[in-house]
């Protein structure tokens, strides 16, 4: 099965969604005061809902591509979560994190390139 570009796009977007939902779930699970507990429920519900949407997107992507090629794209979640953590939790970027992000981008690219082999 050849992995179509739309499948890559779906998985990247789904992964972005799951990264958002991970942040939402993290926020929703923290102990809030009674007056804010409704808010934390909203975080939880939205987080779970986003996960569901992402899951459906990934299955549709899998209709059009190989598992061993598409699934590693999910590793870009490390990148999204790092970026989101930078802005929302004010974490700092270190040289190691930057190198890690580059390594993951390189890895996903290699897998994408590797999936094109053999179609001669």
């Amino acid at each position, binding site marked *: 099965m050849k992995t179509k570009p739309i499948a890559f796009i779906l998985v990247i977007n789904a992964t972005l969604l799951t990264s958002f939902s991970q942040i939402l779930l993290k926020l929703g699970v923290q102990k809030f005061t009674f007056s804010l507990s409704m808010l934390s429920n909203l975080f939880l519900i939205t987080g779970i809902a986003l996960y569901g949407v992402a899951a459906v997107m990934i299955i549709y992507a899998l209709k059009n591509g*190989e598992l061993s090629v598409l699934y590693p794209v999910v590793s870009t979640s490390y990148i999204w979560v790092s970026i989101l953590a930078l802005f929302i939790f004010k974490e700092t970027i270190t040289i190691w994190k930057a190198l890690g992000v580059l390594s993951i981008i390189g890895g996903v690219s290699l897998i994408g390139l590797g999936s094109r082999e053999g179609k001669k």
Partner: protein
Amino acid sequence: MISFIAIIGVIACTITGAIGSLFFKLSSEKFSLSYSGILKNRFFFYGSLIYLVSTIIYLSVLSAVELSILYPLVSLQYIWISILSVKYLKEKMNLMKWSGITLIILGATLISVG
């Protein structure tokens, strides 16, 4: 101190997660947003169950393992997926794809340790 059991837990969760993903891939052919596409889809049902187990294990060990160990271990799932894909989905691995996986595991390690 990271408990040995927690590490086993993470590895178990990656293996079950990989198996769940395999089932989702197998479910994708018949999948659609309809009754028959979801509720009558056997692979989707079992895939969801297995993935749920994986998530439960993950949440259980999450508090017991540092992120710097967790992320790299979790990234091992890409190895399991590659092996399962070759064995059950007739997909092919090659040097480029294995190199890509290696870079991903390296990247995950750098991000979590850095």
